[in-house]
Protein backbone atom coordinates (compact mmCIF):
# COMPACT_ATOMS: atom_id res chain seq x y z
CA UNK A 1 0.00 0.00 0.00
CA UNK A 2 1.24 3.42 -0.94
CA UNK A 3 0.57 5.69 2.06
CA UNK A 4 1.30 8.99 0.27
CA UNK A 5 -2.04 10.73 -0.19
CA UNK A 6 -1.14 12.30 -3.57
CA UNK A 7 -0.76 8.83 -5.06
CA UNK A 8 -4.21 7.63 -4.00
CA UNK A 9 -6.71 7.11 -6.80
CA UNK A 10 -4.04 7.37 -9.51
CA UNK A 11 -3.01 4.66 -11.94
CA UNK A 12 -0.31 2.68 -10.13
CA UNK A 13 3.16 3.05 -11.54
CA UNK A 14 3.95 -0.60 -10.79
CA UNK A 15 0.96 -1.66 -12.91
CA UNK A 16 0.85 0.91 -15.73
CA UNK A 17 4.38 2.28 -15.72
CA UNK A 18 5.42 5.84 -14.87
CA UNK A 19 3.25 8.57 -16.37
CA UNK A 20 4.79 10.27 -19.37
CA UNK A 21 4.34 13.99 -18.65
CA UNK A 22 5.16 15.01 -22.23
CA UNK A 23 1.51 14.28 -23.11
CA UNK A 24 0.50 17.03 -20.71
CA UNK A 25 2.30 19.81 -22.59
CA UNK A 26 -0.67 22.06 -23.24
CA UNK A 27 0.95 25.40 -22.56
CA UNK A 28 3.25 25.59 -25.53
CA UNK A 29 3.58 29.13 -26.89
CA UNK A 30 0.86 30.22 -29.34
CA UNK A 31 2.04 30.21 -32.92
CA UNK A 32 0.85 33.35 -34.68
CA UNK A 33 1.56 34.90 -38.04
CA UNK A 34 5.22 35.77 -37.75
CA UNK A 35 5.86 36.49 -41.37
CA UNK A 36 3.66 37.22 -44.36
CA UNK A 37 3.39 34.47 -47.02
CA UNK A 38 1.39 35.66 -50.00
CA UNK A 39 1.97 39.38 -50.30
CA UNK A 40 0.91 42.47 -52.16
CA UNK A 41 3.36 45.28 -52.81
CA UNK A 42 2.95 49.08 -52.79
CA UNK A 43 -0.25 51.12 -52.53
CA UNK A 44 -0.21 54.73 -53.72
CA UNK A 45 -2.56 57.55 -52.77
CA UNK A 46 -2.69 61.23 -53.60
CA UNK A 47 -5.08 64.06 -52.79
CA UNK A 48 -6.36 66.59 -55.33
CA UNK A 49 -8.71 69.50 -54.93
CA UNK A 50 -11.98 67.53 -55.03
CA UNK A 51 -10.92 64.16 -53.71
CA UNK A 52 -8.32 61.42 -53.61
CA UNK A 53 -6.73 59.03 -56.12
CA UNK A 54 -5.55 55.66 -54.90
CA UNK A 55 -3.90 52.80 -56.79
CA UNK A 56 -2.41 49.33 -56.24
CA UNK A 57 -1.37 46.64 -58.69
CA UNK A 58 -3.24 43.33 -59.05
CA UNK A 59 -0.41 41.02 -58.03
CA UNK A 60 -0.17 38.69 -55.05
CA UNK A 61 3.35 37.30 -54.81
CA UNK A 62 4.42 34.04 -53.18
CA UNK A 63 7.91 35.04 -52.21
CA UNK A 64 9.52 36.09 -55.47
CA UNK A 65 7.00 34.09 -57.52
CA UNK A 66 4.28 36.18 -59.16
CA UNK A 67 1.64 33.69 -57.98
CA UNK A 68 -1.76 35.42 -58.46
CA UNK A 69 -2.11 38.14 -61.08
CA UNK A 70 -5.76 39.04 -60.58
CA UNK A 71 -5.93 39.97 -56.89
CA UNK A 72 -7.84 43.21 -56.33
CA UNK A 73 -6.20 45.12 -53.50
CA UNK A 74 -8.47 48.17 -53.44
CA UNK A 75 -11.76 47.85 -51.58
CA UNK A 76 -14.75 50.18 -51.46
CA UNK A 77 -16.35 50.92 -48.13
CA UNK A 78 -19.93 52.21 -47.85
CA UNK A 79 -19.67 53.61 -51.40
CA UNK A 80 -17.78 56.57 -49.94
CA UNK A 81 -14.25 55.43 -49.06
CA UNK A 82 -11.56 53.14 -50.44
CA UNK A 83 -9.07 51.04 -48.50
CA UNK A 84 -5.86 49.93 -50.25
CA UNK A 85 -4.07 46.88 -48.83
CA UNK A 86 -0.38 46.00 -48.92
CA UNK A 87 1.31 43.11 -47.15
CA UNK A 88 -0.18 39.72 -46.29
CA UNK A 89 -3.05 38.75 -48.58
CA UNK A 90 -4.77 36.38 -46.16
CA UNK A 91 -4.88 39.13 -43.55
CA UNK A 92 -6.24 41.43 -46.27
CA UNK A 93 -9.02 38.90 -46.90
CA UNK A 94 -9.74 38.76 -43.18
CA UNK A 95 -9.97 42.56 -43.02
CA UNK A 96 -12.11 42.59 -46.15
CA UNK A 97 -14.70 40.30 -44.56
CA UNK A 98 -14.49 42.22 -41.32
CA UNK A 99 -15.19 45.49 -43.12
CA UNK A 100 -18.13 43.96 -44.99
CA UNK A 101 -19.60 43.00 -41.64
CA UNK A 102 -18.91 46.45 -40.21
CA UNK A 103 -20.58 48.14 -43.16
CA UNK A 104 -23.70 45.99 -42.74
CA UNK A 105 -23.88 46.64 -39.00
CA UNK A 106 -23.50 50.36 -39.57
CA UNK A 107 -26.14 50.38 -42.28
CA UNK A 108 -28.58 48.85 -39.79
CA UNK A 109 -27.80 51.13 -36.87
CA UNK A 110 -27.73 54.39 -38.77
CA UNK A 111 -30.73 56.42 -39.72
CA UNK A 112 -32.11 55.82 -43.15
CA UNK A 113 -35.24 57.84 -42.51
CA UNK A 114 -33.62 61.23 -42.10
CA UNK A 115 -33.44 63.04 -45.44
CA UNK A 116 -29.84 64.30 -45.24
CA UNK A 117 -28.36 61.11 -43.81
CA UNK A 118 -24.58 61.03 -44.29
CA UNK A 119 -22.50 57.95 -45.05
CA UNK A 120 -22.37 55.82 -41.94
CA UNK A 121 -18.65 55.94 -41.34
CA UNK A 122 -16.56 58.42 -43.29
CA UNK A 123 -12.93 57.85 -44.26
CA UNK A 124 -11.62 59.40 -41.05
CA UNK A 125 -13.85 57.16 -38.90
CA UNK A 126 -12.84 54.12 -40.92
CA UNK A 127 -9.13 54.90 -40.66
CA UNK A 128 -9.36 55.40 -36.91
CA UNK A 129 -11.19 52.11 -36.53
CA UNK A 130 -8.69 50.18 -38.66
CA UNK A 131 -5.71 51.66 -36.84
CA UNK A 132 -7.24 50.63 -33.49
CA UNK A 133 -7.89 47.16 -34.84
CA UNK A 134 -4.30 46.84 -36.07
CA UNK A 135 -2.91 48.10 -32.77
CA UNK A 136 -5.15 45.73 -30.85
CA UNK A 137 -3.83 42.78 -32.83
CA UNK A 138 -0.20 43.75 -32.53
CA UNK A 139 -0.75 44.07 -28.77
CA UNK A 140 -1.89 40.44 -28.74
CA UNK A 141 1.41 39.64 -30.51
CA UNK A 142 -0.73 38.46 -33.41
CA UNK A 143 -0.49 41.32 -35.87
CA UNK A 144 -2.41 41.72 -39.11
CA UNK A 145 0.57 41.94 -41.46
CA UNK A 146 -0.64 44.80 -43.63
CA UNK A 147 0.01 48.38 -44.45
CA UNK A 148 -3.15 50.22 -45.40
CA UNK A 149 -4.10 53.44 -47.09
CA UNK A 150 -7.56 54.84 -46.46
CA UNK A 151 -8.86 57.33 -49.02
CA UNK A 152 -12.09 59.28 -48.94
CA UNK A 153 -13.65 62.42 -47.56
CA UNK A 154 -13.81 63.59 -43.96
CA UNK A 155 -16.88 64.94 -42.14
CA UNK A 156 -16.29 68.37 -43.69
CA UNK A 157 -16.29 66.88 -47.19
CA UNK A 158 -12.55 67.61 -47.56
CA UNK A 159 -10.22 65.02 -49.13
CA UNK A 160 -8.86 62.56 -46.58
CA UNK A 161 -5.89 60.26 -46.99
CA UNK A 162 -4.15 58.37 -44.20
CA UNK A 163 -2.03 55.29 -43.63
CA UNK A 164 -2.01 52.62 -40.93
CA UNK A 165 0.35 49.69 -40.56
CA UNK A 166 0.73 46.41 -38.73
CA UNK A 167 1.94 48.16 -35.58
CA UNK A 168 -1.05 50.49 -35.50
CA UNK A 169 1.13 53.42 -36.49
CA UNK A 170 -0.80 56.11 -38.35
CA UNK A 171 0.30 58.84 -40.70
CA UNK A 172 -1.42 61.38 -42.90
CA UNK A 173 -0.11 63.48 -45.77
CA UNK A 174 -1.28 64.93 -49.13
CA UNK A 175 0.38 61.97 -50.83
CA UNK A 176 1.18 58.58 -49.35
CA UNK A 177 2.74 55.34 -50.51
CA UNK A 178 3.39 52.05 -48.76
CA UNK A 179 6.18 49.52 -49.25
CA UNK A 180 8.57 50.10 -52.16
CA UNK A 181 6.38 52.99 -53.22
CA UNK A 182 7.41 54.99 -50.18
CA UNK A 183 10.93 55.10 -51.68
CA UNK A 184 10.21 55.18 -55.41
CA UNK A 185 6.83 56.90 -55.82
CA UNK A 186 6.52 59.20 -52.82
CA UNK A 187 9.21 61.66 -54.03
CA UNK A 188 7.52 61.93 -57.45
CA UNK A 189 4.11 62.60 -55.90
CA UNK A 190 5.61 65.13 -53.49
CA UNK A 191 6.72 67.07 -56.54
CA UNK A 192 3.04 67.70 -57.30
CA UNK A 193 1.67 68.01 -53.74
CA UNK A 194 4.50 69.06 -51.43
CA UNK A 195 2.09 70.28 -48.73
CA UNK A 196 -1.60 70.59 -47.80
CA UNK A 197 -1.86 74.06 -49.33
CA UNK A 198 -0.83 72.82 -52.77
CA UNK A 199 -3.67 70.27 -52.89
CA UNK A 200 -6.04 73.11 -53.83
CA UNK A 201 -4.27 73.63 -57.16
CA UNK A 202 -4.09 70.00 -58.26
CA UNK A 203 -6.76 68.82 -60.69
CA UNK A 204 -8.18 65.35 -60.92
CA UNK A 205 -6.34 64.73 -64.23
CA UNK A 206 -3.00 65.85 -62.82
CA UNK A 207 -3.38 63.56 -59.84
CA UNK A 208 -4.44 60.55 -61.92
CA UNK A 209 -1.60 61.08 -64.41
CA UNK A 210 0.93 61.39 -61.61
CA UNK A 211 -0.26 58.20 -59.92
CA UNK A 212 -0.21 56.32 -63.26
CA UNK A 213 3.33 57.54 -63.84
CA UNK A 214 4.31 56.33 -60.38
CA UNK A 215 2.78 52.91 -61.04
CA UNK A 216 4.96 52.71 -64.13
CA UNK A 217 8.11 53.63 -62.23
CA UNK A 218 7.25 50.97 -59.67
CA UNK A 219 6.77 48.37 -62.41
CA UNK A 220 10.19 49.24 -63.83
CA UNK A 221 11.97 49.05 -60.52
CA UNK A 222 9.98 46.82 -58.12
CA UNK A 223 10.47 43.14 -59.02
CA UNK A 224 7.31 42.21 -57.04
CA UNK A 225 5.00 44.45 -59.09
CA UNK A 226 2.73 44.01 -62.09
CA UNK A 227 1.64 46.05 -65.10
CA UNK A 228 -2.05 45.44 -64.43
CA UNK A 229 -3.43 47.52 -61.58
CA UNK A 230 -6.52 48.99 -59.89
CA UNK A 231 -7.17 52.69 -59.61
CA UNK A 232 -9.89 54.44 -57.67
CA UNK A 233 -10.97 58.07 -57.53
CA UNK A 234 -12.99 59.20 -54.52
CA UNK A 235 -14.96 62.45 -54.73
CA UNK A 236 -18.14 63.76 -53.17
CA UNK A 237 -20.01 62.04 -56.00
CA UNK A 238 -18.83 58.64 -54.84
CA UNK A 239 -16.16 56.10 -55.74
CA UNK A 240 -15.02 55.28 -59.26
CA UNK A 241 -13.07 52.07 -59.03
CA UNK A 242 -11.49 50.53 -62.08
CA UNK A 243 -9.81 47.18 -61.47
CA UNK A 244 -8.33 46.35 -64.87
CA UNK A 245 -5.98 49.20 -65.70
CA UNK A 246 -2.92 48.45 -67.85
CA UNK A 247 0.34 50.35 -67.84
CA UNK A 248 0.63 52.21 -71.15
CA UNK A 249 3.57 53.45 -73.21
CA UNK A 250 6.24 51.59 -71.35
CA UNK A 251 9.79 52.16 -72.42
CA UNK A 252 12.35 49.50 -71.60
CA UNK A 253 15.10 51.19 -73.62
CA UNK A 254 17.04 51.73 -70.43
CA UNK A 255 17.04 48.04 -69.60
CA UNK A 256 19.98 46.85 -71.65
CA UNK A 257 22.18 49.49 -70.04
CA UNK A 258 21.67 48.00 -66.61
CA UNK A 259 24.67 45.90 -65.69
CA UNK A 260 26.03 44.16 -62.69
CA UNK A 261 23.10 41.94 -61.72
CA UNK A 262 22.39 38.26 -62.32
CA UNK A 263 24.49 36.00 -64.51
CA UNK A 264 25.48 38.35 -67.29
CA UNK A 265 29.20 38.49 -67.92
CA UNK A 266 29.47 41.42 -70.32
Amino acid at each position, binding site marked *: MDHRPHAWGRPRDDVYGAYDPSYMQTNVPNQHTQSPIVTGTSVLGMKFKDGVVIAADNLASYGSLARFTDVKRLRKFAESSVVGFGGDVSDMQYLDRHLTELAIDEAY*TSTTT*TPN*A*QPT*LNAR*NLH*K*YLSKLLYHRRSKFDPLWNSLLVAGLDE*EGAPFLAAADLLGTTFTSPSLATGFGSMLAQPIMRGIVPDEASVEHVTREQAINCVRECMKVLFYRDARSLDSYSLAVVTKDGVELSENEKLESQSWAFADRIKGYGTQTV
Partner: protein
Amino acid sequence: MFRNNYDNDSVTFSPQGRIFQVEYAAEAVKQGSVVVGIRNAEELSSYQKKLFAVDEHVGLAIAGLTSDARVLSNFMKQQSLSQRLTYDRAIPLETLVSLIGDKAQLNTQHYGKRPYGVGLLVAGVDDSGPHLFEFQPSGLTQEMLACAIGARSQMARTYLEKNLDKFADCGRDELIRHGLRALKETLVQDRELTVENTSVGVVGPKEPGKRPLEAFKVYDGAETKDWITSIADDTEAGGDGMQVDE
Protein backbone atom coordinates in the same frame (compact mmCIF):
# COMPACT_ATOMS: atom_id res chain seq x y z
CA MET B 1 -59.72 42.19 0.18
CA PHE B 2 -58.72 43.04 -3.38
CA ARG B 3 -55.11 42.56 -4.25
CA ASN B 4 -53.29 42.78 -7.54
CA ASN B 5 -51.65 39.40 -8.05
CA TYR B 6 -49.80 40.38 -11.17
CA ASP B 7 -47.51 43.14 -9.95
CA ASN B 8 -44.98 41.21 -7.87
CA ASP B 9 -42.30 41.23 -10.54
CA SER B 10 -41.56 42.54 -13.96
CA VAL B 11 -41.80 39.21 -15.77
CA THR B 12 -45.41 38.31 -15.02
CA PHE B 13 -48.06 39.38 -17.50
CA SER B 14 -51.58 40.13 -16.24
CA PRO B 15 -54.40 38.27 -18.04
CA GLN B 16 -54.98 41.48 -20.00
CA GLY B 17 -51.38 41.37 -21.20
CA ARG B 18 -50.10 44.20 -19.03
CA ILE B 19 -46.89 44.28 -17.02
CA PHE B 20 -47.74 46.26 -13.91
CA GLN B 21 -44.18 46.83 -12.71
CA VAL B 22 -43.42 48.60 -15.98
CA GLU B 23 -46.52 50.74 -15.62
CA TYR B 24 -45.56 51.64 -12.06
CA ALA B 25 -42.18 52.76 -13.37
CA ALA B 26 -43.99 55.01 -15.81
CA GLU B 27 -45.79 56.50 -12.78
CA ALA B 28 -42.42 57.41 -11.30
CA VAL B 29 -41.79 59.53 -14.37
CA LYS B 30 -45.10 61.34 -13.90
CA GLN B 31 -44.14 62.19 -10.34
CA GLY B 32 -40.79 63.66 -11.36
CA SER B 33 -40.79 67.37 -12.09
CA VAL B 34 -41.45 68.53 -15.61
CA VAL B 35 -39.00 68.78 -18.50
CA VAL B 36 -39.61 70.25 -21.91
CA GLY B 37 -37.60 69.75 -25.07
CA ILE B 38 -37.95 71.32 -28.48
CA ARG B 39 -35.94 71.04 -31.64
CA ASN B 40 -36.02 72.76 -34.98
CA ALA B 41 -33.66 72.82 -37.91
CA GLU B 42 -30.86 74.54 -36.06
CA GLU B 43 -31.63 74.76 -32.37
CA LEU B 44 -32.87 72.60 -29.62
CA SER B 45 -33.33 73.11 -25.97
CA SER B 46 -34.66 71.45 -22.87
CA TYR B 47 -35.24 72.55 -19.32
CA GLN B 48 -35.46 71.27 -15.79
CA LYS B 49 -33.69 70.99 -12.52
CA LYS B 50 -31.64 68.09 -13.74
CA LEU B 51 -29.92 68.63 -17.04
CA PHE B 52 -26.73 66.74 -17.87
CA ALA B 53 -24.24 66.98 -20.69
CA VAL B 54 -23.46 63.48 -21.95
CA ASP B 55 -20.94 64.53 -24.58
CA GLU B 56 -20.16 67.71 -26.48
CA HIS B 57 -23.07 67.12 -28.81
CA VAL B 58 -25.60 65.42 -26.51
CA GLY B 59 -27.41 66.41 -23.36
CA LEU B 60 -30.31 64.98 -21.44
CA ALA B 61 -33.09 66.01 -19.11
CA ILE B 62 -34.59 63.68 -16.53
CA ALA B 63 -37.94 63.15 -14.85
CA GLY B 64 -38.14 60.48 -12.17
CA LEU B 65 -35.55 58.75 -10.01
CA THR B 66 -32.30 60.69 -10.14
CA SER B 67 -30.22 57.67 -9.19
CA ASP B 68 -31.55 55.64 -12.10
CA ALA B 69 -30.92 58.58 -14.39
CA ARG B 70 -27.34 58.65 -13.18
CA VAL B 71 -26.86 55.02 -14.13
CA LEU B 72 -28.20 55.68 -17.61
CA SER B 73 -26.27 58.90 -18.08
CA ASN B 74 -23.00 57.30 -16.96
CA PHE B 75 -23.61 54.51 -19.44
CA MET B 76 -24.30 57.04 -22.19
CA LYS B 77 -21.11 58.95 -21.34
CA GLN B 78 -19.11 55.75 -21.61
CA GLN B 79 -20.65 54.84 -24.95
CA SER B 80 -20.05 58.34 -26.33
CA LEU B 81 -16.43 58.23 -25.24
CA SER B 82 -15.92 54.77 -26.68
CA GLN B 83 -17.18 55.90 -30.08
CA ARG B 84 -14.85 58.91 -29.98
CA LEU B 85 -11.91 56.59 -29.26
CA THR B 86 -12.62 53.84 -31.78
CA TYR B 87 -14.17 55.85 -34.62
CA ASP B 88 -13.14 59.44 -33.88
CA ARG B 89 -16.74 60.53 -34.24
CA ALA B 90 -19.61 61.92 -32.23
CA ILE B 91 -21.96 59.02 -31.55
CA PRO B 92 -25.14 59.25 -33.66
CA LEU B 93 -28.11 60.09 -31.45
CA GLU B 94 -30.21 57.22 -32.71
CA THR B 95 -27.46 54.73 -31.88
CA LEU B 96 -27.03 56.15 -28.40
CA VAL B 97 -30.73 56.21 -27.63
CA SER B 98 -31.38 52.71 -28.92
CA LEU B 99 -28.56 51.49 -26.66
CA ILE B 100 -30.31 52.76 -23.52
CA GLY B 101 -33.63 51.60 -24.93
CA ASP B 102 -32.33 48.04 -25.18
CA LYS B 103 -30.71 48.30 -21.77
CA ALA B 104 -33.97 49.41 -20.16
CA GLN B 105 -36.05 46.84 -21.99
CA LEU B 106 -33.79 44.09 -20.65
CA ASN B 107 -34.69 45.14 -17.12
CA THR B 108 -38.36 44.52 -17.82
CA GLN B 109 -37.68 40.97 -18.93
CA HIS B 110 -35.37 39.53 -16.28
CA TYR B 111 -36.62 38.03 -13.06
CA GLY B 112 -35.34 39.91 -10.04
CA LYS B 113 -34.64 43.07 -12.00
CA ARG B 114 -36.80 46.19 -12.01
CA PRO B 115 -37.44 48.76 -14.71
CA TYR B 116 -35.67 52.12 -14.51
CA GLY B 117 -37.90 54.63 -12.75
CA VAL B 118 -36.93 57.50 -14.96
CA GLY B 119 -37.96 59.12 -18.21
CA LEU B 120 -35.45 61.04 -20.31
CA LEU B 121 -35.42 63.62 -23.01
CA VAL B 122 -32.21 63.22 -24.99
CA ALA B 123 -31.25 66.17 -27.18
CA GLY B 124 -28.30 66.48 -29.50
CA VAL B 125 -26.85 67.23 -32.90
CA ASP B 126 -25.11 64.63 -35.07
CA ASP B 127 -24.14 64.28 -38.73
CA SER B 128 -27.78 63.97 -39.74
CA GLY B 129 -28.83 67.13 -37.90
CA PRO B 130 -30.57 67.95 -34.61
CA HIS B 131 -32.55 65.29 -32.77
CA LEU B 132 -34.79 65.06 -29.75
CA PHE B 133 -35.64 61.67 -28.32
CA GLU B 134 -38.02 60.64 -25.58
CA PHE B 135 -37.06 57.63 -23.49
CA GLN B 136 -39.49 55.71 -21.26
CA PRO B 137 -38.80 53.11 -18.54
CA SER B 138 -40.39 50.43 -20.71
CA GLY B 139 -37.47 50.84 -23.11
CA LEU B 140 -39.60 52.67 -25.63
CA THR B 141 -37.73 55.44 -27.43
CA GLN B 142 -39.27 57.84 -29.91
CA GLU B 143 -37.90 60.69 -31.94
CA MET B 144 -39.90 63.87 -31.28
CA LEU B 145 -40.06 67.40 -32.68
CA ALA B 146 -41.05 68.68 -29.27
CA CYS B 147 -41.84 66.80 -26.09
CA ALA B 148 -42.54 67.22 -22.40
CA ILE B 149 -42.43 64.57 -19.68
CA GLY B 150 -42.94 64.66 -15.92
CA ALA B 151 -45.54 66.10 -13.56
CA ARG B 152 -48.32 68.10 -15.26
CA SER B 153 -46.45 67.83 -18.53
CA GLN B 154 -49.72 67.44 -20.43
CA MET B 155 -50.20 71.22 -20.28
CA ALA B 156 -46.79 71.75 -21.81
CA ARG B 157 -47.46 69.20 -24.52
CA THR B 158 -50.70 70.99 -25.37
CA TYR B 159 -48.79 74.25 -25.79
CA LEU B 160 -46.11 72.57 -27.88
CA GLU B 161 -48.69 70.92 -30.10
CA LYS B 162 -50.44 74.23 -30.73
CA ASN B 163 -47.23 75.98 -31.67
CA LEU B 164 -45.49 73.13 -33.43
CA ASP B 165 -45.57 74.78 -36.84
CA LYS B 166 -43.70 77.84 -35.59
CA PHE B 167 -40.65 76.01 -34.24
CA ALA B 168 -39.07 75.26 -37.60
CA ASP B 169 -38.55 78.95 -38.44
CA CYS B 170 -37.60 80.08 -34.93
CA GLY B 171 -34.22 81.48 -34.07
CA ARG B 172 -32.39 80.11 -31.10
CA ASP B 173 -33.72 82.60 -28.54
CA GLU B 174 -37.27 82.43 -29.82
CA LEU B 175 -37.17 78.64 -29.55
CA ILE B 176 -35.93 78.89 -25.99
CA ARG B 177 -38.80 81.26 -25.20
CA HIS B 178 -41.28 78.77 -26.65
CA GLY B 179 -39.79 76.13 -24.37
CA LEU B 180 -40.10 78.41 -21.36
CA ARG B 181 -43.70 79.26 -22.22
CA ALA B 182 -44.48 75.55 -22.44
CA LEU B 183 -42.79 75.05 -19.08
CA LYS B 184 -44.81 77.91 -17.62
CA GLU B 185 -48.01 76.10 -18.59
CA THR B 186 -47.20 73.29 -16.21
CA LEU B 187 -46.84 75.47 -13.13
CA VAL B 188 -49.44 75.27 -10.40
CA GLN B 189 -51.36 78.38 -9.38
CA ASP B 190 -49.28 81.24 -7.93
CA ARG B 191 -45.98 79.76 -9.04
CA GLU B 192 -43.73 81.41 -11.56
CA LEU B 193 -40.60 80.62 -13.50
CA THR B 194 -37.67 82.15 -11.68
CA VAL B 195 -33.91 82.03 -12.06
CA GLU B 196 -33.90 79.62 -9.11
CA ASN B 197 -36.24 77.01 -10.49
CA THR B 198 -35.36 77.16 -14.17
CA SER B 199 -32.42 75.98 -16.17
CA VAL B 200 -31.99 75.71 -19.90
CA GLY B 201 -29.81 73.31 -21.85
CA VAL B 202 -28.92 74.23 -25.41
CA VAL B 203 -26.94 72.50 -28.14
CA GLY B 204 -26.73 73.49 -31.80
CA PRO B 205 -24.46 74.73 -34.55
CA LYS B 206 -22.86 78.15 -34.06
CA GLU B 207 -24.35 79.21 -37.38
CA PRO B 208 -27.56 77.70 -38.74
CA GLY B 209 -26.85 74.62 -40.84
CA LYS B 210 -23.06 74.95 -40.53
CA ARG B 211 -20.66 72.61 -38.86
CA PRO B 212 -18.82 74.10 -35.88
CA LEU B 213 -20.92 73.01 -32.96
CA GLU B 214 -21.65 74.95 -29.83
CA ALA B 215 -21.27 72.25 -27.21
CA PHE B 216 -24.24 71.31 -25.02
CA LYS B 217 -24.41 73.91 -22.28
CA VAL B 218 -26.66 74.17 -19.27
CA TYR B 219 -27.70 77.72 -18.44
CA ASP B 220 -28.49 78.13 -14.72
CA GLY B 221 -29.50 80.91 -12.39
CA ALA B 222 -28.65 84.41 -13.58
CA GLU B 223 -27.81 83.16 -17.07
CA THR B 224 -31.49 82.43 -17.69
CA LYS B 225 -32.66 85.83 -16.42
CA ASP B 226 -33.08 87.54 -19.79
CA TRP B 227 -35.11 84.71 -21.24
CA ILE B 228 -37.35 84.47 -18.18
CA THR B 229 -38.06 88.19 -18.03
CA SER B 230 -38.76 88.24 -21.76
CA ILE B 231 -41.64 85.81 -21.36
CA ALA B 232 -42.88 87.20 -18.04
CA ASP B 233 -44.78 89.95 -19.89
CA ASP B 234 -46.71 87.46 -22.00
CA THR B 235 -50.42 87.24 -21.40
CA GLU B 236 -51.48 85.09 -18.48
CA ALA B 237 -51.48 81.37 -19.06
CA GLY B 238 -49.31 81.04 -22.03
CA GLY B 239 -49.52 83.88 -24.54
CA ASP B 240 -50.89 83.58 -28.05
CA GLY B 241 -51.51 79.85 -27.93
CA MET B 242 -54.37 80.11 -25.47
CA GLN B 243 -56.26 83.06 -26.91
CA VAL B 244 -58.66 81.04 -28.99
CA ASP B 245 -61.82 83.09 -28.41
CA GLU B 246 -62.83 85.18 -31.40
